[in-house]
Every structure is written in structure tokens, then in C-alpha cells.
């Protein structure tokens, strides 16, 4: 790996991180490193400028004003005993070392690769009604996670927030034994004030809301092939995982 030409910036504040990120063009953001470092080692990524966020002060979980806010650099391990269905999704991710290193912001920004889906937490955050606060071109912006994901990369995620409210939740995932597996397919569900939200991780480049399921219908979403599983398998698995996630929710 030739790194001599890579400019590495390690900001020590959020403002410095935003200034260095600029409009994001040509900047590779390194959060926990579990995706970027593997891509660097394999030569899949050749950054010009890398922004390492480990000292930017973007980690931590706060609860105030009826909101839960999770900083982008919060490790996945910090979610394991927290709000459902995010906690179950977090416990399901990778292994103990990966969960300690991988971050919430990295998970939101990691699109699926040719080998596997990557955004294991995204469906759980979508059903929690999470909004993403990000910086970049045009300045700071806050939007629902599903809108953020649909627009693609190019933003510096600062934090995600959702209502600190009681809700029934459910989660079901295809379980694949052994290490460092990205989730093949997972369905998360949550009901808050009678409002049902259902989403799936693993069907495409990022998690999607299953609005047809929320309205009482079938899950009508195209799936994709990758090295972990075929589209055919995912299509067959999806309604079963939806059923299990909803049953899990009703039991809660």
C-alpha cells in the first residue's frame, strides 16, 4: 500500500473536521477504519486526502429534550445495551473487536460492496425515525435517514437523533455463523404512538423502508446478488423475516 502521497488530516474539533471536509470532493473519511482500512489494504481505495475523525469529538450518546442523539464516532459496542431494535442490530454486527471499533457514522455511510451489504444498523435507525445531521456542500443539514441514504454519499455525518419515547420493536436477521459477516438480510420494525415503521437492511446498496408492509401488504422490493447471497435467496427470505420481526414486535 503506497501512502506517501496521501494527505492525512486529524482534526481535533468538529469545526475543524467540517472545514477540512469542505464540500467532500476528494476526501476519504476514516471513522473506525473497519471498512476504509480493509479497502486500503486490498487496493480498492486510493485516497488523495484522508480525514481521520478519531479525535474530532464526535462520539457519545446524549438524552435530552426528548431526543436521543448518537455522535457519528460512537462505537457500535456502545449501542449493545441501548434502545431496541438498534441494540439487537448492534449485537448482531461483526464480532467483539469489530463492534468496539466500527462506528455509527461509518455504518450509515458505508454502501454495500460487491461482496456484501454493509449498513447493518441502518434499518434499525430508520424504524426509530432517526434523522441525520451532516455537514458538507451547502452547510449543515438535518434530514430523515432514509432521505439521506437515498441521496448517496458525499456528506460528513455529525450525529443521528431519534425520539426518546416508548415503542414496541422487533428485529429478525438471517444469521450466518462465524466472524466478520455483514448481515445478509435483516428486518427491523417499531411502533410508536400507533405508527408502524418497517425497514430492511441487505436488499440493496443501503437500507430501505418497507412502506407496503407498513400498510399491511407484502414486501415488494427488489433484492440484489452479492458474494454472501443471491437475490433469489433474499427474495424468499424477506417475507419470512418480515413475519418474524412483526411477531417479535407484537410479543414485546
Amino acid at each position: 500500500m503506497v501512502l506517501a502521497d496521501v494527505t492525512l488530516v486529524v482534526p481535533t474539533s468538529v469545526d475543524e473536521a467540517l472545514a477540512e471536509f469542505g464540500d467532500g470532493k476528494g476526501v476519504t473519511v476514516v471513522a473506525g477504519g473497519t471498512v476504509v482500512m480493509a479497502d486500503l489494504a486490498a487496493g480498492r481505495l486510493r485516497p488523495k486526502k484522508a480525514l481521520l475523525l478519531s479525535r474530532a469529538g464526535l462520539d457519545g450518546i446524549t438524552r435530552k429534550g426528548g431526543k436521543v442523539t448518537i455522535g457519528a464516532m460512537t462505537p457500535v459496542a456502545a449501542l449493545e445495551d441501548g434502545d431496541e431494535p438498534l441494540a439487537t442490530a448492534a449485537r448482531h454486527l461483526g464480532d467483539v473487536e469489530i463492534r468496539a471499533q466500527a462506528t455509527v457514522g461509518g455504518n450509515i455511510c458505508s454502501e454495500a460492496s460487491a461482496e456484501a451489504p454493509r449498513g447493518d444498523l441502518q434499518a434499525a435507525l430508520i424504524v426509530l425515525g432517526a434523522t441525520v445531521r451532516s455537514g458538507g456542500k451547502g452547510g449543515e443539514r438535518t434530514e430523515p435517514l432514509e432521505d439521506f441514504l437515498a441521496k448517496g454519499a458525499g456528506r460528513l455525518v455529525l450525529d443521528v437523533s431519534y425520539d426518546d419515547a416508548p415503542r414496541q420493536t422487533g428485529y429478525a436477521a438471517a444469521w450466518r455463523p462465524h466472524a466478520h459477516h455483514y448481515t445478509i438480510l435483516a428486518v427491523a420494525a417499531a411502533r410508536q404512538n400507533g405508527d408502524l415503521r418497517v425497514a430492511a437492511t441487505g436488499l440493496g446498496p443501503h437500507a430501505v423502508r418497507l412502506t407496503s408492509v407498513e400498510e399491511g401488504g407484502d414486501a415488494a422490493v427488489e433484492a440484489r446478488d452479492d458474494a454472501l447471497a443471491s437475490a433469489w435467496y433474499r427474495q424468499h427470505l424477506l417475507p419470512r423475516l418480515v413475519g418474524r420481526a412483526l411477531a417479535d414486535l407484537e410479543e414485546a
Partner: protein
Amino acid sequence: MKLTVNGIGHEVESHGLQSLLYVLREELGITSPKAGCVQGGCGACTVLVDGEPRRSCLTPLAALNGAAITTLEGLGTPESLSVVQAAFHEQYGSQCGFCTPGMIVATTALLERTKKPTRHDIEQALAGHYCRCTGYVKIVASVEAAAGGAKK
């Protein structure tokens, strides 16, 4: 940048985005962390960063500001094995040996957190560690023996 490994301070020159694994092996000549998959998937490169197990292949040097690194070399010596090393030796917990540094480092961290781990605790702690000799039964027995030994 300064890097403390097994209690010894080093001044390292590698690029800040270089992996800790590379720095340990290629710059400092500390070779117990193995370059297995170098994708974070096999666990053979695992070291302790401030006492917590980490994939050194996924950890950029610049993220280690002031951290204390412990590798297998820092846990015991051939004359005086650590409790975990002795248990792996006695229980035949190592076959080809390639995964062993990661297994022992992860086990050491587990027993720091949990003095009497259940079988589930052990499986969780070692879930990210491949043994391609498939010697898992003896590895788990080694961890259980180390936990028993640690009680004495």
C-alpha cells in the same frame, strides 16, 4: 509519532494511515500479530490497545495517540508463560500456531473482564478468530483451563 509497545516507547515513522499491524511487523519487527486476511475477518492480527482487543490490521497508526499496545510478546516469556499461554500449552490449544497469538490476546482480555466466563462468553470473545486447523474444541478447553487457573 510515539508508540508504546509492551511497555517500551518507540518513535515510529510510518504514515499515519498505515495500519498498526504493518508498523508492528515491518517497522518494529514484532511478529506475533499475523497478517492473515488483512481485512479484519480472521483475528490473527489482534493486539491489546489500552487493554482492549483490537484488529491491528484495521487500526490506523494516527488513531493511536498515546495508546499502550500489548502484543503476545508482552504477555509472557518462554521461561515464564502467562496463565493463558500455559493453559494453551497444556491443553494443546495450538496446532499450526498462526491464530494462536490472536486467540491468546483475546482470551487475556476476556479474563480481565470476566473472571469466570461461561461457554457463551468464550464463544463470543473468540467469535472473530479463525482457526483453520479447526482446533476450536481444544482452544475453548484452553480458555476454560486458563479461567480455572486464574482463580487460584
